[in-house]
């Protein structure tokens, strides 16, 4: 062999070695489910809950499962981050989880399209479970991608209006607003200026105002993010333009972007006791069902009211709807114990008693139709409002996408530029969002 041939051979060998090494890092997809779930088996369950009350609740749920399935033992690992989940799903092996729960619903598109999670359709069929008859429609939407169901909802989150009842009384407002024009009038009435700031703001409309994000607000218009062929629909759906126009109007009515932004910069941490709704800095807020419990824990001094977030005036008949999201649960495709793992997923996601008990314990919205109607569900009227929002047929969610929540962040980014006056042409801006979203998706496919 000549010198140059030897060099070429070495280069080819090195390239092959690198290819092998890198392929080895990708884990192996194992779509078969040949294990016997009636045999004695131990499965591993990873979840992200970390608060002691949440961990206690999930442990109680797992214990109830083990009681019902004495041959299946569950090794529970809590406080797992998304990065750890992704690493484990890639690597597989004996230490990888069999059942995984994640808060990042946005990643479902990637989990399904990459086969990181097992396709649950065969399991659902075998168990005689009809997803459409079991789960609310929006929750079904965010747990599948392009027809492939690789996850199920495990409790959900619903967004609604929180309001300060004492402030309402002081401003002479008898009931929560139902339409956005009523909402604007109430927000203005509740706003008290103090120098170049506020002593109380009716509502923080800026997109950085914690949960007043483009996606949460756009749900009130029922706006659709994608066409039937999967291309971005933001410029075509009039709901998005209407939402931005409304937000701009609110910003102007409440003092202007700069004044609001300066006020916002003094807000306490969203997840801490100094949340501006807790402190009375804002009299109304859009937020999830968890806020009621957090406000009570923070020792809020006023009476809290909750209601569905108002709807556009021309959609008054859809009042009661809101944005939905939630936690997902699925079976890792690398698992060698998929049938046993499915038993745990089935129990946690579809067993009415299990879903109701877990929902009552951590005050997240139940994720099955039966659990939503269960008489055993916590009767707290604040919580019940969110249960109603979750059941509303007009409630919507953000669909799964192949590159996670990138399309939402692109829209949100435009929102920041638009509200700050950096971009004034709304139609051109939304068209730009469409183009960017399509480019990002093309890159991800």
């Amino acid at each position, binding site marked *: 062999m000549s010198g140059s041939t030897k060099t070429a051979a070495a280069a080819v060998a090195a390239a092959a070695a*690198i*290819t092998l*090494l*890198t*392929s080895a890092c*990708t*884990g192996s*997809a194992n779509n078969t489910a040949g294990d016997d779930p009636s045999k004695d088996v131990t499965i591993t369950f990873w979840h*992200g809950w970390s608060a002691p009350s949440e961990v206690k609740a999930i442990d109680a749920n797992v214990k109830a499962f083990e009681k019902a399935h004495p041959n299946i033992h569950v090794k529970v690992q809590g406080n797992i981050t*998304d*990065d750890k989940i*992704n690493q484990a*799903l*890639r690597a597989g092996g004996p230490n990888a989880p069999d059942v995984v729960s*994640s*808060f*990042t*619903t*946005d990643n479902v598109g*990637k989990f399904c399209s*990459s*086969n*990181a999670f097992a396709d649950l359709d065969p399991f659902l069929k075998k168990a005689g479970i009809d997803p459409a008859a079991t789960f609310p429609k929006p929750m079904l939407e965010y747990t599948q991608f392009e027809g492939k169901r690789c996850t199920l909802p495990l409790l959900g989150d619903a967004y609604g209006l929180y309001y300060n009842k004492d402030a309402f009384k002081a401003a002479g407002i008898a009931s929560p607003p139902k339409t956005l024009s009523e909402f604007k009038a109430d927000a203005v009435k509740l706003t008290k200026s103090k120098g170049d*700031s506020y002593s109380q703001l009716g509502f923080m409309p800026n997109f*950085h*105002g*914690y949960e007043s*994000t483009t996606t949460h607000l756009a749900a009130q218009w029922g706006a659709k993010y994608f066409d039937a062929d999967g291309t971005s629909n933001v410029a075509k759906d009039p709901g998005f333009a209407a939402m931005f126009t409304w937000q701009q109007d609110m910003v102007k009515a409440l003092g202007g972007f700069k004044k609001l*932004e*300066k*006020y*916002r*910069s*003094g*807000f306490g*941490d*969203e*997840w801490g006791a100094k949340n501006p709704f807790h402190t009375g800095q804002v009299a109304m807020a859009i937020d*999830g069902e968890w806020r009621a419990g957090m406000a009570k824990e923070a020792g809020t001094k006023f009476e809290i009211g909750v209601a569905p977030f108002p709807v556009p005036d021309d959609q008054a008949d859809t009042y009661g709807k809101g944005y939905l*999201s939630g*936690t997902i649960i699925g079976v890792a495709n690398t698992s060698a114990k998929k049938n046993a793992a499915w038993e745990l997923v089935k129990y946690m996601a579809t067993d009415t008693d299990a879903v109701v008990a877990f929902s009552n314990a951590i005050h997240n919205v139940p994720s099955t139709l039966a659990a939503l109607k269960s008489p055993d569900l916590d009767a707290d009227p604040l919580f019940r409002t969110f249960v109603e929002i979750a059941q509303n047929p007009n409630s919507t969610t953000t669909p799964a996408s192949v*590159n*996670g*929540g*990138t399309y*939402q*962040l*692109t829209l*949100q*980014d435009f929102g*920041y*530029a638009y509200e*700050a006056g*950096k971009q004034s042409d709304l139609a051109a801006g939304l068209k730009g969002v469409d183009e*960017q979203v399509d*480019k*990002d998706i093309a*890159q*991800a496919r």
Partner: protein
Amino acid sequence: MSAVHPMLRAKRRREALRILAFMSPWLIGFSVFFAYPLVSTVYFSFMKYDGFAAPTWNGVRNWSYVFNDYPFFWPALRNTLWLVVVMVSLRVVFGLGIGLLITKIKTGAGLFRTAFYLPYLAPPVAATMAFAFLLNPGTGPVNHLLGKAGLPTPGWFNDPTWSKPALTLLALWGIGDLMVIFMAALLDVPKEQYEAAELDGAGPWARFRYVTLPNISPILMFAVVTGVIQTMQYYTQPLVAGKVASGVIGGSGQQFEPGYPEKSTLTLPQLVYNLGFQRFDTGSACVIALVLFALAMAFTALLMRRRSGFLTAED
């Protein structure tokens, strides 16, 4: 051609093996921790790889996407270059200034040394959060004092014009590492050279220019090169500052796009995370990593060339 004696050949082979054995710890370390990751990064930059399915050939699409279609790349590159030029320069000047000051102080030098060094030990996340609190435009004490003094009250981390200067202030606050290095270098300058310069009538500036600077130039170069490389990897502080100031801390499961306000705190390492771990686009993340590598190499080569490396005037 005369044949090499077999014994001589065996001796040479043994010699080569011995050298290789001595070098092996470094060779293994270099191969595993530098060469393999670098080759892999180049390889993945041409592949479509989401971290789950096996990689497939993608040609130059990742490169084209990053340079033409990824809206965060150019702002992040501009920010990184701004920080490299402004922040590194100011850190070196400030570090040297503090070092000079402390070496001249007759009493209480230990106290000042400690006071200037301590902030460097603060964890970056905690330090950034403290700065975000101090510089909060609505409730922070800094703007309160500036307002009382009748001075303008910037938006700091909430204003795209002021966010990078605010990060620079944070970096200057944690100057302890450079201060210690410069102090050691300054104390190492031979005293007789200063005495000779004084006898020749050199003033303080001339002594600094013609005695101090040539003597500490290798350390100066070291500070600049390591500063450039560190700034290329600047991740935690801008991310935390942007997150805290934006208020969008993100609940469980919410994704967060870094760069608040208006992409002004975006840096290239943040994009590696955004692409690789949030968008599952390992290929494009590798492109950014290679851009960073090329930039670090270019800056280092430029600096070394301009200053003849780490040589002192004597060398």
